[in-house]
């Protein structure tokens, strides 16, 4: 279709010359894309192998040293050689745009890159974050110490991944922007190029990462939010030999980058859920839903003006096609309104679920690992004094 139309621009004002010499007209050199040399289906296979290696190192070898090797390998290969573009985090946007827009082309390897870490999370928890993710890896390397921030602030900030996920899906599904890619603070390091102002943001987040481990994983990563949800189904998190060997030294709790290790709670409580807090949560939940809806509609007003159909209708002069343009603009407006209302409800639901989960009282007599937050970095193995002897 397109190629037939192109012929219009090439006009023969000057005829093809007859050369008296043996000159032959050379063909136009057309360099083929770089990535065509490596078939795309290799990428998910490489990802599978790396995930299997991570699971083996984390659950069987239980060795931080070997895992550090794997992390360096992943950061170099996926990060610096592939420019950070074997990215499960970014594939959220491709998938959500593909679901929303039926004509958007996706390849099977993009879908597999999105699904394989999720399937791994169903079986073994968030092992993708541990060593297979180049962004997680570079944060793991660029970390000196882990100072804790106050717990209420931490709990508030852990809503961040879910908010980022919501915004990323909303913007991608409406085909406005791929905000994960354009606001990723670490991809500038892999590519050695920085957009305007991105260098300062990257520098700040690296400096934070030096004193507070994995800030992007904990408070921003939208794919981490998905893996968190799916790792509910994983059978066991990292199994530190806790029962009788434990000497309550708290080393593992202090070194954990994501506050996933919960110390024993010796206080006796009647119920698993504190009833008073739950009552307050349920009482304020209608208010949160209402605020979410209002927020969604408010965002929708801004997004409607960015839609190309609406822009076209606003700028069009009255002509025969104005009715078609108006219908398109009205349809786009309806779609955006519904999408942003769902988005507002989603934000409200996230906040309410978080509040309800805070009502839970843990009654553990030993150290337990919260499998939703554990990123399988195997730092706790390294520091546990009882585990030292077992190490290979």
């Amino acid at each position, binding site marked *: 279709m397109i190629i037939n139309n192109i012929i219009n621009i*090439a006009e023969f004002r000057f005829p093809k010359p007859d050369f008296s010499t043996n*000159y032959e007209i050379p063909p*136009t050199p*057309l360099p083929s894309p770089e990535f065509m040399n490596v078939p795309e289906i290799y990428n998910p296979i490489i990802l599978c192998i790396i995930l299997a290696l991570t699971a083996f190192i984390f659950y069987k070898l239980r060795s931080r040293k070997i895992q550090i090797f794997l992390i360096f390998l992943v950061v170099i290969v996926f990060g610096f050689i592939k420019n950070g573009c074997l990215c499960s985090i970014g594939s959220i946007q491709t998938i959500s745009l593909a679901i929303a827009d039926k004509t958007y082309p996706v390849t099977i390897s993009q879908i597999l890159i999105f*699904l394989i870490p999720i399937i791994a999370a169903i079986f073994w928890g968030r092992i993708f974050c541990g060593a297979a993710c180049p962004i997680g890896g570079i944060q793991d390397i660029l970390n000196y110490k882990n100072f804790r921030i106050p717990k209420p602030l931490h709990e508030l900030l852990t809503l961040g991944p879910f908010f980022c996920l919501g915004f990323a899906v909303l913007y991608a599904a409406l085909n406005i922007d791929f905000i994960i890619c354009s606001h990723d603070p670490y991809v500038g390091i892999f590519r050695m190029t920085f957009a305007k102002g991105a260098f300062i943001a990257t520098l700040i987040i690296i400096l934070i990462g030096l004193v507070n481990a994995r800030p992007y994983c904990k408070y921003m990563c939208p794919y981490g939010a998905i893996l968190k949800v799916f790792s509910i189904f994983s059978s066991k998190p990292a199994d530190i030999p806790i029962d009788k060997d434990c000497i309550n030294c708290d080393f593992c709790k202090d070194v954990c980058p994501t506050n996933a290790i919960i110390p024993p709670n010796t206080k006796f409580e009647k119920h698993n859920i504190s009833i008073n807090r739950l009552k307050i949560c349920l009482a304020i939940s209608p208010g949160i839903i209402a605020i979410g809806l209002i927020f969604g509609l408010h965002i929708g007003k801004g997004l409607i003006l960015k839609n190309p159909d609406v822009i076209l209708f606003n700028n069009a002069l009255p002509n025969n096609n104005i009715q078609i343009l108006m219908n398109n603009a009205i349809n786009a407006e309806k779609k955006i309104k519904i999408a942003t209302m769902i988005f507002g409800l989603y934000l409200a639901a996230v906040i309410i679920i978080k509040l309800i989960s805070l009502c839970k009282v843990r009654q553990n007599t030993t150290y337990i690992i919260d499998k939703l937050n554990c990123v399988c970095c195997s730092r706790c193995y390294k520091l546990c004094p009882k585990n030292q002897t077992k190490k290979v």
Partner: protein
Amino acid sequence: MMNQNNNTISRRNFFRKLIGSIILLCSGVLLWKKRETYQTVWQIDPNKCQNCGDCAVNCVMTPSAVKCFHLYATCGFCDFCSGYYQNNYIERNSAAENLRCPTNAIKRQFIDDPYFEYKIDQNLCIGCGRCAEACQAFGNGSLILQINQDICKQCNVCNIATLCKYDAIIKIDAKSPYLLPEKYL
């Protein structure tokens, strides 16, 4: 007894997980099968492109991945090439004030009286589109702007595509990554 119980539970759990992951995979395959799927690359649609020169500055690569391509089969091999010389040139030589290309990326070579071959040095070209504009206005239109797929990083969101005033940058099948008038090739 205790052990056996544990085993059965874990087996049931395992099958549950297996079924869950198979459902996920099947939905992924459904998503894939329901549409025409192909690997895509960004390319300039020459019908819509107005050679405005925005690509030269907006691309994330420096110099831009947009380059000028010369279709030899369409070229008239003129002595006075409007893509090579300025409109108000002083003398027909390779002095910079006479040439249209700001980086001297077009190389001129004598072939046969009065014909000259023009060749584009892809390393020097910055994709400003001045030669393409002039050639399409006064000549055969053999110089056209295309994205050099060897240089293009294939960003998810192409910066020049979002900023293009004419919506000229589109996604096409990677198997035929250039949009050229094939009839003359």
